[in-house]
């Protein structure tokens, strides 16, 4: 693997709301190397998007805030305290992001071209004409047929898959070191999803970009990721190499998750994880998963376990405490 481009340490993001302050994400640790794909999986609301937005400093104004003890290092530089201005030099340039809902994520009243040229003009400081050429090239690369004509259209005139391609083209236009894809294919059909995922894979290879892929589809993870971070209740619970994770999940949540997925060539009764995901505002004091865990002990209820290292992988569970 290549150089270390991103290092997230002890990332905690709190939300201030009218009913109080709560951490949407707490004590997140992970690293990302050049050319690597890290998948972040987890249930809805577990903090996947907040994690990525924290890295980008795009949390909603006045509501979301990264706590001071968090550390985000981009290529060795600490960026967690960057100002908006400093960040805007990185965003779209070094770190790019693709969002889930491509219809609302593109400006409905601007042509695709007008939106495509912006990153070129802002970061590469090239003229509009050159930027237009580059934009068309980029669109061609992501597989949009006849880009010269299509760029004059508005986003709503594109299909969902096309829009997602535009989003990706826009994100990759300045050759970023890190591409964060927040559920890029959830809204798409499987056949289109396959196309898009393949395209991301190909471009990543070509540009040696590190990718953070956020999804909740274990199938996508299995097929595309190098490493996987499983999240639960605002925390990473397991971080492992993709193959290892699928063949030998350690955390009880990961185990349950994998067991509850229907297998294509096997229709025996599914196993389930009983209970519900607790709300972030009243998380159990101890391990966030303790209420639904079959191995739960008193200690689990009182104390939140740290991430334990187990060789190449990390698990947040007392059962894997060193010496156990």
């Amino acid at each position, binding site marked *: 693997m290549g150089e270390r481009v991103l290092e997230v340490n002890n990332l905690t993001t709190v939300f201030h709301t009218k009913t109080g302050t709560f951490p949407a994400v707490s004590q997140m640790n992970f690293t990302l190397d050049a050319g690597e794909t890290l998948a972040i999986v987890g249930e809805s609301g577990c903090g996947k998007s907040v994690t990525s937005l924290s890295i980008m400093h795009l949390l909603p104004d006045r509501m979301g805030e990264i706590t001071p003890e968090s550390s985000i290092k981009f290529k060795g530089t600490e960026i967690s305290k960057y100002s908006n201005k400093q960040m805007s*030099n990185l965003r779209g340039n070094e770190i790019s992001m693709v969002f889930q809902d491509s219809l609302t994520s593109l400006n409905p009243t601007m042509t695709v071209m007008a939106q495509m040229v912006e990153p070129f003009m802002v970061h590469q400081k090239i003229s509009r004409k050159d930027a237009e050429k580059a934009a068309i090239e980029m669109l061609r690369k992501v597989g949009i047929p006849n880009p010269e004509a299509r760029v004059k259209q*508005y986003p*709503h005139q594109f299909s969902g898959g096309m829009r997602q391609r535009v989003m990706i083209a826009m994100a990759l236009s300045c050759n970023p070191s890190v591409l964060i894809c927040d559920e890029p294919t959830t809204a798409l059909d499987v056949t289109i999803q396959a196309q898009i995922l393949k395209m991301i894979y190909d471009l990543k290879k070509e540009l040696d970009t590190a990718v953070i892929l956020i999804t909740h589809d274990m199938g996508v993870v299995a097929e595309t990721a190098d490493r996987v971070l499983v999240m639960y209740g605002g925390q990473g619970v397991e971080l492992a190499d993709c193959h290892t994770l699928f063949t030998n999940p350690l955390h009880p949540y990961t185990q349950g998750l994998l067991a509850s997925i229907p297998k294509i060539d096997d229709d025996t009764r599914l196993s389930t994880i009983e209970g519900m995901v607790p709300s972030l505002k009243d998380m159990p004091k101890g391990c966030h998963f303790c209420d639904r865990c079959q191995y739960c002990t008193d200690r689990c209820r009182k104390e939140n376990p740290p991430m334990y290292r187990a060789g190449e992988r990390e698990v947040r569970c007392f059962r894997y405490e060193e010496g156990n």
Partner: protein
Amino acid sequence: MGRYILKRTLTAIVAFIGITIMTYCLASLMPGSPLDQLVQPESGISNAELAAIEHKMGLDQPIYIQYFFWLKNMFQGNFGVSYTQHRPVVELIAGRIGPTLLLSLSSMLLALFVAVPLGTAAGYRPYKGIDYASSVLAFVGQAAPNFFVALLLIYIFAVKLRLLPISGMYNSGSSGTAGEVLKHLILPCLALTFQHLGIFTRQMRNSMYECMSDDYVRTARAKGLNERTVLFKHTLRNALLPLITQAGLSLGALVGGAIITEQIFSWPGMGTLMLKAIKDRDYPLIMGITVIISVIVLIGNIVIDIIYRMLDPRIDDKV
């Protein structure tokens, strides 16, 4: 687009006919008749003479016949002759439409010019000083009766400061230069603007506030655009859309609502003419003014729709 304009025009014509029917019926339902003008201590007119005049004017016909007669003439461009002023209605309106349009359009523009930056600033920095300041202004604007604002303005600018004239459009005895008209325009325009200013500012602030949390704004930021570009290039245009709709709705109120302002400032516009026409039961004039104002409003709404469509490409494919 062409087809859309055609469609809008046709529906507007239907609405227009409806308006004329309604106004005609209501106007003739009003107690009293235009002939009452002739009945005065100085006139000594007799019942027979009145009956003869009534017949001559066609006022003894059933209402629907009068209406169809009126409609037929209107489509031939003939709006009739005012019963009391004895000039063709078209000419009377032509003399007044300029001042009315000047007053209402200038106050619409003024309201927009103030509301857009203010609302934008407030929506961009919500719950900060500028937001509260603009809210106060907006609420005061919405809560102060039109005529009262007018009086206060007069008191301050004409009486205390002696800066501006209070009545009419020209100085006495002068035929009027542009500067003079402008000077006379300031107070009525301000008075008329005040209320709409409030509504517009609120609208702009709210839509700006909503747009700021839209996904594409996040995308724009994620591209590394600076805040200025995000604000002016990405957000503002989208935030303007609801304001445009609001402006369309306010158009009628603005053109029609100028009545009181015109009255207070003796502004020679259609509002005062309308009041007089209603007072005199001058049906051709009432009808003429209603027709013109509704046409202005209907056309204004079409224009606003078209602007809306130009700003929002999504609509075109929907309808």
